């Protein structure tokens, strides 16, 4: 603590000493979050790249394996996730207006929708276990030659890695939401200072964007081949 640090802008308790204005502080936080999200884009980007390379190498097998996923469950889950993004943006809006009870309401709704998404995902994964579509020694995809089985395993390895990593981000997002709900209840946020809600929103929407790409790539693009 610097006792002699008598700043002219000490009227706002939320403003840190290194910033001149609240707007500048907010812009810095937003920029920092986007930098983090860009590293996440590259992180997921590597997986999207591997997917592209192998789908290009084994298009027929990937089409068959992809078509075994339940497209209706996938689409419904996409809608659930988009709903959670909508409630999240309304929570951020409520934070901008300083309406604490509305923030909590929408954060809880977001949390519930996120939970539904993860629940459906768990149901889908369980289905894969029952169908022996888990990569490993007991993997079996109906009506494929042994060498094709290996390529089908590649698809499911990527499916589990990508949806698993996405689900991990959702679980972290649930933790972020719980933290935000608790802090809002404590009255930490107001119309003047709601940066954590805003930043949490950015994270949640980013996870949504990843799913927006995962859904067509994993569930949809070869659907027409099956007829």
């Amino acid at each position, binding site marked *: 603590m610097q006792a002699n640090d008598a700043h002219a802008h000490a009227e706002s308790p939320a403003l840190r000493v290194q910033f001149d204005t*609240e*707007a500048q502080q*907010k*812009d810095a936080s*937003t*920029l920092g979050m*986007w*930098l983090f*999200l*860009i590293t996440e*884009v*590259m992180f997921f*980007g*590597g997986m*999207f*790249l591997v997917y*592209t*390379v192998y789908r*290009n190498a084994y298009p027929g097998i990937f089409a068959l394996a992809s078509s075994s996923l339940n*497209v209706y469950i996938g*689409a419904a889950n*996409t*809608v659930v996730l*988009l*709903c959670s*993004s*909508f409630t*999240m*943006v*309304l929570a951020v*809006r409520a934070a*901008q*207006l300083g309406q604490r009870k509305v923030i909590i309401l929408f954060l809880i709704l977001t949390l519930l929708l996120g939970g539904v998404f993860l629940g459906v995902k768990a149901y889908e994964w369980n289905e894969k276990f029952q169908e022996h579509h888990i990569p490993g020694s007991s993997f079996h995809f109906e009506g494929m030659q042994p060498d094709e089985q290996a390529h089908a395993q590649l698809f499911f390895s990527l499916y589990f890695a990508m949806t698993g990593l996405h689900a991990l981000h959702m679980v972290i997002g649930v933790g972020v939401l719980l933290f935000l709900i608790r802090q809002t209840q404590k009255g930490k946020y107001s*119309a*003047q200072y709601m940066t954590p809600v*805003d930043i949490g*929103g*950015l994270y949640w*929407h*980013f996870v*949504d*964007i990843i799913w*927006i*790409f995962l*859904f*067509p*790539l994993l*569930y*949809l*693009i*070869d*659907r*027409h*081949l099956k007829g």
Partner: protein
Amino acid sequence: MSEHIDSVKTYALVFAALIAATIGTTAVAFVDLGPFSVVVALLIAVCKALLVALFFMHVRYSTRLTRLVVLGGLLWLLILLALTMSDMLTRNWVGVPGR
């Protein structure tokens, strides 16, 4: 604060567009468009991602620096995909002597 606050109506319209695009992309997946099914699916996904980023993530009202960082990040992703695929897709174009 000089912060821009969108109306609930704006968010609701964006949300409706996102849901419509999800239903659309699912429906069109059953139509045989040949190699264009990938193109259409990814185009719809890019549009959805743009809607989420511009409206829900407030990129529309972000500072120029933030927008530049976002674009720069996407450029790096493009480099990652384009350079790797340009290698993968052209490997057998020219025969290698002795192979």
